[in-house]
């Protein structure tokens, strides 16, 4: 961890993400309809809504994995494709190699995330695995893990990259109540991790069906319906 303490984030800095009149069509299916939204830096936003309401697509837009059909997406002051490494995204799929162990997977992604003389002390794979409650020395390949363990490995993968914007798609879906509670506390803790480089705080956007779990840490709760924000 970085030891230099940051002053408490100033409220009037650049927002973490801005969506301006964003629509996303898949063929003739409108996943996102004319959505405008500003996500303040240093906050946790929880997206609720039914399947197909557009939550996942919204996260993929913020991650820069897909481009909007109309409108513009800005994350950390620029297009998300140009903020690679500062945004992390965890989807339904584990985004891990089944044949490799958790440690091997995380080390691989750690190398990919290290650009230039990046500080290796932050987000070491071992620490990330311990943080989510997994044994770093487990030699079993990820493919033989239980759903919940895979979910936690996946979370470790995004945490180790030490992101400023963290996008989580259903982070609690396959977890038992105990570990879900543990993850909620971990996320609340993650928000307070110091950042080097003068950014104004870590931002989390997550989607979930279990509203009661996320309520305690949410700064903002939005409900999506048919590609738009209804509440």
């Amino acid at each position, binding site marked *: 961890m970085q030891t230099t303490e940051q002053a408490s984030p100033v409220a009037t800095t650049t927002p973490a993400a801005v969506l301006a009149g964003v629509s996303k069509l*898949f063929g003739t299916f409108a996943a996102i309809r004319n959505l405008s939204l500003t996500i303040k830096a240093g906050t946790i936003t929880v997206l609720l809504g039914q399947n*197909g309401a557009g939550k996942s697509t919204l996260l993929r837009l913020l991650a820069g994995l897909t481009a909007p059909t109309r409108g513009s997406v800005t994350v950390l002051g620029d297009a998300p494709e140009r903020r690679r490494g500062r945004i992390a995204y965890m989807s339904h799929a584990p985004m891990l190699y089944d044949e490799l162990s958790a440690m091997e997977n995380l080390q691989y992604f750690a190398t990919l995330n290290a650009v230039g003389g990046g500080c290796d002390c932050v987000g070491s794979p071992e620490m990330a695995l311990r943080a989510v409650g997994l044994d770093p020395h487990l030699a079993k390949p990820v493919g033989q893990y239980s759903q919940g363990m895979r979910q936690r490995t996946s979370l470790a993968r995004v945490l180790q990259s030490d992101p400023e914007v963290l996008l989580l798609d259903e982070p609690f879906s396959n977890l038992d109540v105990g570990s879900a509670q543990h993850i909620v506390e971990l996320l609340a803790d993650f928000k307070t991790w110091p950042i080097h480089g003068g950014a104004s705080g870590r931002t989390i956007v997550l989607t979930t069906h279990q509203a009661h779990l996320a309520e305690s840490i949410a700064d903002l709760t939005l409900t999506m319906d*048919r590609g738009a924000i209804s509440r």
Partner: protein
Amino acid sequence: MESATSTKRTSLMIGSVWLVLTLVVLTIGFRQALFLSPTDAEQGDVGRIFYWHVPSAMLGLVFPYINFVASLAFLYLRRRNPLAALTADAWAVAAAEVSVVFASICLVTGMLWGRAVWGIWWTWDWRLTSELLLWLLYVAYLMTRRMSTDGQTSTLGAIISVFAALDVPLVYFSIRWFRTQHPSPVFGGGADSGLDPSMYPAFLWNVLAWLMWGGFILAFRVAVERRRQRLDQLEGLRMLESDIDNFKLGGEPERGNAF
């Protein structure tokens, strides 16, 4: 709206006039080629295929360049100016289709000529082989566009187009070396080396005619493609505006994850 319909009308008028002119020139070319130009002493009447074969071959080499330039423009504009990029894409796909049409004609007329004059339909001579590969490359381009998933067609097409454009000169030279080392007996005589002055009028009229036709069909195809793109956008807009009636509940939850 007023100006949009009037420009539409103007372009329709220009198109019709151009088409009529083209048909006139095509008729002149046809008459020249079949009735006015002298019969080739060696080849007989079948030598007249030359007047369709050669202009098609020439144009079949021009349109790939248009496709290449339009594809580069598309790749450059893709993120910077999506609307202009769409126009570039319309030109690219139109040029590729027209290339395939002209290359097909070149191949078929060439084969008909070869059977009558050489006695064989096909020989793996460098010229024939390169033309066939050109045809294959642009068919591959069109197939890729057909098979690609929504929203990625233009980008994938543009990438293939760049590869094809890099490939064509290499194909041309490599096959030329290859066939120079094993000269085909049929190409010893040099039957079409040099052009007799008496053939000029028929030849030039036909080049002009097919150039005009090529330009017409290209512009027409671009217009149709532009229209299709506009309709697509309109449809998208309607989808966005219509609220509930078009919405399938729980539809496509996996869409967001599709790679």
